[in-house]
């Protein structure tokens, strides 16, 4: 179980401070896929970076804490201070456009044995890795290739293989399929779901595609302007969205076969009145496990 307590992450740019994540308090249970949605600038990628422990200038931890509830490889609890040592082992990250994140000048197999502190017997690691990528639907020869020799879908599978090889307790996937075609995207998402069910770990998936969220997640987290506007079980959030912004996101794209065009109207209405979506940081439980934030008070809206 991961607990975020009043988390505030800021960027300092040219003397100005921007709070990209502004007072997020949240509990993420074990063994589930949590989807994070919101438009560009809503703070979703910043929140993921903070959980991953990748806070670098100009980004800074201004307030709050993260309670991972995880044990590291050395048996000690994972904290915000030592989380970096657990990268790839207890917690791993599949970055945005990750198909381009493989080192282009070395073979894939060298990237597998490159992790610090893994099994010292490289041969054994490689054998295991070869077997593992086979399970993920990649030919064993892919291990001996350079990244450019693989297609985008294969590279994405390879990144998922790297990120899941050590069976981490927590995986953060930031737009894992955005650059892929729908057919490949479905394969990759099915693979992620299978791996999660097998490992019983927690995966946080950032995506702007509500269809992707509906397909793969158990819980949904909707963010707007650095704050959580809604959080709850996926079925409940899609069947009965509580916040106007969530409704707008769900309805913002047309559906094949649906000529009612309900969503299109919603997205047009939402195009201008953005201030109306701003919320207070605290969440109210409206149904068991389904939380929604209250509208921002006028005073704060005027300041922002």
């Amino acid at each position, binding site marked *: 179980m991961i607990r975020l307590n009043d988390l505030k992450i800021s960027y300092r740019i040219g003397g100005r401070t921007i709070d990209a994540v502004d007072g997020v308090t949240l509990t993420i249970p074990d063994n589930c896929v949590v989807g994070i949605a919101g438009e560009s600038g809503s703070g979703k990628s910043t929140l993921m970076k903070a959980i991953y422990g990748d806070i670098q200038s100009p980004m800074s931890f201004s307030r709050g804490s993260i309670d991972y509830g995880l044990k590291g490889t050395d048996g000690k609890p994972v904290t915000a201070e030592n989380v970096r040592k657990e990268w790839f082992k207890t917690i791993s990250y599949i970055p945005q456009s990750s198909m381009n994140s493989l080192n282009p000048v070395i073979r894939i197999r060298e990237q597998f044995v490159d992790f610090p502190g893994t099994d010292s017997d490289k041969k054994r690691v490689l054998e295991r890795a070869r077997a593992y990528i086979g399970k993920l639907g990649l030919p064993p020869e892919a291990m001996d290739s350079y990244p450019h020799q693989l297609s985008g879908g294969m590279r994405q599978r390879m990144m998922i293989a790297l990120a899941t090889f050590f069976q981490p307790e927590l995986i953060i996937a930031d737009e894992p399929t955005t650059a892929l075609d*729908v*057919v490949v995207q479905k394969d990759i998402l099915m693979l992620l779901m299978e791996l999660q069910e097998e490992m019983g770990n927690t995966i946080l998936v950032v995506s702007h595609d509500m269809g992707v969220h509906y397909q793969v997640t158990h819980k949904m987290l909707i963010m707007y302007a650095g704050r959580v506007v809604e959080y709850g079980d996926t079925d409940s959030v899609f069947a009965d969205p509580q916040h106007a912004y969530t409704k707008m996101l769900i309805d913002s794209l*047309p559906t094949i076969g649906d000529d009612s065009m309900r969503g299109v109207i919603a997205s047009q209405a939402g195009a201008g009145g953005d201030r109306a979506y701003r919320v207070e940081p605290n969440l109210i439980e409206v149904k068991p496990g389904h939380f929604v934030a209250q509208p921002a008070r006028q005073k704060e809206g005027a300041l922002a």
Partner: protein
Amino acid sequence: MSVILQTEGLNKIYRLGGFMRSKPIQALNDVNITVESDKPVVIAVVGESGSGKTTLAKTLLRLETPTSGRAIVYDQVVAGQGAIPSKKDFLGLVQPIFQNPFEAFSRYRPVDVYLEETARRVAGMDGIQAENAVTEALKNVGLSYEEVRGKYTAQFSGGELQRISVARALIPDPKLIVADEPVSMIDASRRMIIINLFKRLRDEAGRSFVYITHDLATAYYISDYVAVMNKGRVVEFGPARKVMSDPKHDYTRLLLSSIPTTTSRWRERKRIAS
């Protein structure tokens, strides 16, 4: 009835690799589509990367010369053998909108300069006419000249900038606009603003569109016709609603079944203990 778009045996072969050992890639393989209509239409071209849809767009925009075959837009041969219109006439007939508006405009020049240049050079207007045309075009996309004048790309959001791209394309009064993935760089929640703009321009301003996309849902919403491409071929072509509600080709079925919808799941999700 006029021929809005027709391609006749369109082929495009790229050569990949060195001079001695080049490998041919058939990007377009005998593409034949015909759209005849009295009313302006939106023609969607859908398919995965590498399916040839961008090559088709580039051929229609005369950015690539077809290896063989020809393309006709509004009864004029625009590409391939017998292509008649001069560059200026062509740009008055067909205009492009590209995927990434941040790359379509230079970062170092105010964007309104592009609009004014299009009015002067392509449409051959003088100063006052150009000013009026730019004002009118921006009004058409829901912007005012004051909001745009003297500003650079970094001062706009992707959606606003794409609307400016549309405004620019409207200035020479083209009959057909070829839009290559115009919304894939825009936030999902804002895409419909651009899509609805296309729809309005078709219904109220009489523009036809070739809408290149991998997003079948927006294609379903806006298109009159759809061409499904796979490996350089058009595997299915017809009225959009008919093709997408009753697909005949396996590849079209595969594409449609791969769309993540919010109505039915690919597979059961195991319940979690919360």
